[in-house]
C-alpha cells in the first residue's frame, strides 16, 4: 500500500516536473532521462563484475543505426529505434567473443580499444557514417495524439514524456531481469565465479548475456538521443562521455539498482542547474574531477550507501529492497582480481 502510494506520487511528480522548469531546463531534463537509461544499463553490465569502457560507443551504435535505417530505408522512427537497439546488441555480441577472453584490467583496456576502433571507423568513412561531421538532419519522431495529450515533438516536454515512458518501461524490464534467476546468476558470476562454474553455470555465456542485454538498452538510449537532437557525430560518443557515465556510476554506487541513477541525477542537477547557472562553465571538468576523486576516497560505496544507512531503521527485514543486499559492498574496489 505504502509502496503503491510512493510510485503514484513519484509518477505524478515526474509528470508535473517539466512544467516547473524553463525551456532550456526542459531540454536538460530530456537528456537526463536518456542518461538515466544509459547509466542503468551500464550497471546491468557491471553486474557480472566487468567494467567496460565501450558502453558509450555502443550507445552510439544504436544512434547511428537508428538514424541510418530511417534515412536509407525510410523505417518508421519508433521501429527504427528498436532496430537500433537490436543492432547495438548484435555488435556487442560480436565484440564479446574477443573481449570476454579477457578479465579485469585487460577487459577494461580491450573494451576501450574496441570502442575506439568503432568510433574511428565512423570518423574515417564518410559513406555511410558521414565522417567527422557525422549524420545530420536525422528524422524526428512523428507527432501523434493519444486523445488526452497531443505529442508535438518540437516541444521538449512532449519528448520528455515520450522518453520517460520508454525509459520507465526499460528500467522495469532491467529490474525484472535482475530479480529473475538469470539476474541472480549474474551476481553469482561476479562474486563466486569459481563456485558458479563448479555448479555448472556457463560463466562465459552469462557474461556475454549481461553485456548484450545492457548494450541493447544503451543502443536504445542512443537512438532516443539521435532522434531528439537530429545530429550525431563521432565526438558525441568519445571517451569523455564515457568518463561521465563512469563518474555517475561510481559516485552513485553500483550495489543497488537505484545507485547509478541517483548518481546521474544528483550530478546532472549539480552540473547543469548549479554550475551552469552560477557561471562556472569553464570550471565544470575541474569540479567533476574533484568530485570523482573525493567520492572514491571518502565515499567508496557511493551515495547509495548514505541512502541505505538512512533507510535502515525503517526496514523490517534488513536490506529487503536490494537484490544485492547480502553481497559484499560492490565498490569497484573489490571488482578487479
Amino acid at each position, binding site marked *: 500500500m505504502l509502496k503503491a502510494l510512493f510510485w503514484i506520487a513519484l509518477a505524478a511528480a515526474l509528470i508535473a516536473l517539466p512544467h516547473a522548469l524553463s525551456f532550456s531546463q526542459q531540454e536538460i531534463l530530456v537528456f537526463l532521462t536518456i542518461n538515466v537509461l544509459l547509466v542503468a544499463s551500464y550497471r546491468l553490465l557491471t553486474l557480472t563484475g566487468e567494467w567496460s569502457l565501450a558502453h558509450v560507443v555502443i550507445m552510439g551504435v544504436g544512434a547511428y543505426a537508428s538514424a541510418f535505417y530511417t534515412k536509407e530505408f525510410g523505417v518508421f522512427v519508433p521501429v527504427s529505434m528498436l532496430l537500433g537497439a537490436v543492432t547495438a546488441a548484435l555488435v556487442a555480441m560480436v565484440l564479446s567473443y574477443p573481449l570476454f577472453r*579477457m578479465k579485469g584490467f585487460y577487459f577494461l583496456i580491450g573494451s576501450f*580499444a574496441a570502442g575506439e*576502433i568503432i568510433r574511428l571507423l565512423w570518423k574515417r568513412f564518410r559513406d555511410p557514417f558521414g565522417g567527422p561531421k557525422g549524420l545530420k538532419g536525422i528524422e524526428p519522431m512523428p507527432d501523434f495524439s493519444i486523445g488526452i495529450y497531443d505529442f508535438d515533438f518540437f516541444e521538449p516536454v512532449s519528448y520528455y514524456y515520450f522518453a520517460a515512458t520508454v525509459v520507465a518501461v526499460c528500467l522495469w524490464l532491467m529490474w525484472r531481469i535482475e530479480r529473475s534467476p538469470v539476474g541472480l546468476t549474474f551476481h553469482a558470476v561476479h562474486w563466486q565465479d569459481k563456485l558458479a562454474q563448479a555448479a555448472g553455470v556457463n560463466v562465459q555465456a552469462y557474461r556475454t548475456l549481461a553485456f548484450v542485454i545492457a548494450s541493447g538498452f544503451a543502443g536504445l538510449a542512443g537512438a532516443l538521443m539521435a532522434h531528439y537532437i537530429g545530429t550525431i557525430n563521432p565526438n558525441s560518443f568519445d571517451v569523455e562521455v564515457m568518463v561521465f557515465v563512469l563518474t555517475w556510476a561510481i559516485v552513485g554506487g553500483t550495489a543497488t539498482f537505484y545507485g547509478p541513477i541517483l548518481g546521474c541525477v544528483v550530478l546532472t542537477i549539480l552540473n547543469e542547474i548549479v554550475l551552469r547557472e552560477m557561471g562556472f562553465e569553464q570550471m565544470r*571538468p575541474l569540479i567533476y574531477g574533484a568530485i570523482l576523486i573525493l567520492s*572514491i*576516497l571518502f565515499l567508496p560505496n557511493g551515495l547509495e550507501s548514505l541512502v541505505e544507512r538512512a533507510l535502515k531503521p525503517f526496514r523490517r527485514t534488513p536490506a529487503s529492497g536490494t537484490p544485492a543486499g547480502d553481497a559484499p559492498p560492490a565498490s*569497484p574496489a573489490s571488482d578487479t582480481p
Partner: protein
Amino acid sequence: MIELLAQTGLNALYAASYISLVAVGLVLIFGVMGVINFAHGELFMVGAYTVVALYADLQMPFLVAITFGLIFVGLLGLVMERSMFRPLRDNPLGGLVASIGFLMILQALASIGFGVRMEHIPPVTQEVIVFSEKVRLPLPRLFVMVAAVVLLGALWYFLRRTRFGWALRASAQDPEAAALQGISINQTARIAMFIGAGLAGVAGALTAPLVSVNPHMGHSVIVTAFIVIIVGGVGSLEGAVLASVVYAFVHTVVTTFWDGVIADIVGLSLMLLVLIVKPTGLFGTAERA
C-alpha cells in the same frame, strides 16, 4: 622509394623515442604500485605547457624549461601518489578512477590558464640535417632522440646498478616480500611515481615545439601509451621500449601510405590482437599476479 622509406624510418625513430619515454613511465608506475595512471597523457601535456610558460613566454633557455618540466611534473606525480594512490592502494580500479578525476582537473586548469587554442612555440633551432634531397632530419627531432636514449640509459643504470633501483624492482616483483626485507613501500612508490611522471613531463617538454600544444593533447598520447604497454607486455620496461619502436614504425608507415585515422585503427587492432592472442604481450614474461 628507398628515400621515402629512409625518411619514414627517421620519423618513426623520432616518434618511438618520445613514446617510449611516456610508456616506460607508465609501466614503472604500474609495476611498482599496480595502478594504471590514466592521467599520464595529461602529465605529458603539463610538461609541454611548462615549455610554453618558461621558454615561449618567459624566454628562459630551452634546457632550463625542460629540466623544470621534468621536476615539476615529477612533483605533480608525488602529489598524486600521496593524495590518491597511497590511500587507494588496496583498490586498483579506485586508483584508475581517481587518476581519471585528476586528468579532468589538469585539463581544466590548462584550459583556464592558457586557453583552449593551440599554443605557438618558437622553434629551438631551424637547422636541418640533410642526408639527401628527400631525407632530412630537423635538429630538434634529433634532440628528442638523443634525450630519450640518455634518459632511458640513465633509468636502466638506476634500476640495475643502484640500491634504490634494486629496491624498486624488488617491490615490483613482490611488495610483501620486499616490505619484509625492510624496503619501504611508500619510499619506492614515491621514487617510481616521481620518475614515471617526470619522464612523461620531460617527453612533453621535449616535443612541445614540434607538436600542437593544447589542453586535450594528452588523449592521443595516453591511447598510444596503452597500445605500447599492452603490446610490450604490461610490467616489462624493455618490452615497452621495443613495442614503442614497433608501434612507431607501423603507425608511421601506415600514416605515410594511407592516412592517420587508418593508422590509429591499425594500432588499436594490433593491441586488441595481442590482448586476445597473447595477453602477456609480445615481449612480456609472466603475468603479474
